[in-house]
């Protein structure tokens, strides 16, 4: 951890019906991702049908949370109030395998000489000021 002070922040999460199982798992310190029962395709983000085959039979599968940075940006401004105190900070698109590409905060020095695509990362969980577990990627 190099500086994302999640503990000092309120995090405005309002889980949708599609998202509730994800946030329930996060509260337990676990990552789960949706997978289609008939065609076995994993996908992201969660929804109530499979975007590959259209089936409505979806299961949630545990994931170890290891991935690689596919792309990143370093915010020097943000219009999102909950993140304003964090600038500059890094957002990454992380490939978790099996077609799951998840956006998240990356806790790393916000410097283009340090952050890079293809960096291996791991999802960790940190408590926010409003007492919820927040998933954050860290270099692994």
């Amino acid at each position, binding site marked *: 951890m190099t500086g994302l002070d999640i503990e000092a922040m309120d995090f405005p999460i309002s889980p949708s019906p599609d998202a509730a199982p994800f946030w329930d798992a996060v509260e337990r310190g676990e990552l789960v991702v949706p997978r289609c029962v008939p065609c076995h395709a994993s996908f992201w*983000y969660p929804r109530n049908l499979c975007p590959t085959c259209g089936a409505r039979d979806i299961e949630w599968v545990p994931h170890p949370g290891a991935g690689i940075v596919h792309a990143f940006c370093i915010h020097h401004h943000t219009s*999102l109030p909950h993140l304003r105190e964090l600038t500059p900070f890094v957002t990454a698109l992380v490939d978790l395998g099996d077609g799951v590409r998840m*956006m998240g905060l990356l806790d790393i020095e916000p410097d283009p000489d340090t952050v890079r695509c293809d960096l291996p990362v791991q999802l960790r969980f940190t408590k926010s000021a409003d007492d919820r577990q927040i998933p954050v990627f860290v270099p692994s």
Partner: protein
Amino acid sequence: MSTGVAFVGAGEADRIGSVPDKSALQLHAEAATAALANAHLELSDVDGFFTCGLDFMPNLLVAEYLGLHPSVSGSNSIGGSSFVAHAHEAIQAIESGACDVVLITHGETRRSNAKRGVTTRPAHDDPWFPDWQWERPWGVMTPPPAYALAASRHMHEYGTTSEQLAEIAVATRAWAALNPMAKNRDPLTVDAVMSTPWFVYPFHVLDCCLVTDAGGAVVLTSTERARTLGVPVVEILGSGVHHTHYGISNMPDLTVTPAAVSGRMAFEQAGVSPEDIDVAELYDSFTYTVLVTLEDLGFCAKGAGGEFVSGQRTAPGGEFPLNTSGGGLSYTHPGMFGMFLMIEAVRQLRGEAGDRQVADAQLGVVNGMGGYLSSAATLVLARSES
């Protein structure tokens, strides 16, 4: 080949840039009358109408203000490419005989809305929407970080540099210097762009488009009728529209935009190749948008966009006239820019572009890019016999 449909008029609102004393609807009306006058047509000739960007029922709102009761209308909303997509739909409507004269308008006061504390677009305030769930919590709720994510991958895969992106900002500014309607006309250098602060890495402030107040309109009819109007005729040889995602997390390949599909559709229908094109108007929400679009339309190989724009090749006097109005980067950008790409292409092909006229421009291409590199709409245009 041809679609059988042509642009016969194009125009802007009386003043664009910062226009705090006018409403968005006034900008629509000013642009509509300018474009119709440019076409030697009247509002009463219009029986097809397209717009978007204002309100929940954009075509109803603006058609009422203009006094139109159109036979065909639409408000397809796919981001900044929408108005180019409206032209694609207008072709189908005119070719089918459902209408004869189509007016497409755009007007927004994005710059002044912020000062008035108002918004004229529909609210997007349900936290259960996917972007609220999966992107906003992590910092992405506006285009700059979304496009920055895509650009970072392109730089990683192909060695594209910040200096190459800056070349686009500099060349576009040089075109703006020749356009009296452009907001920013002072000369730029690559060093000057590189020395502006990061907005969101890998974009400096000057890699990002303007936010302005502006209105624009274009008029289309059948090529057959166009030739009776006594105006220069700009035929649409081919068109295509394609979209692949809403949020940047669901973009199938961060380095390939939907212009790869819409462009192929438009060029194939037109029966011409990128190397035949004399002038290109490609949406420049960010410098990177232009670079990746050049690749996806086939002006250069995938990954070669940086090299293509280096050495000011796209500036006035360069080998490849690009974004000759000064673009969204330096001319105007009222939240969406597709309309203004078409206006400039029509002016260039009519030979009405003043100091920035590209000599003997016969063939042009327009590419709108909307959302988070989500949607693209491409037109291939030709100066035609009047």
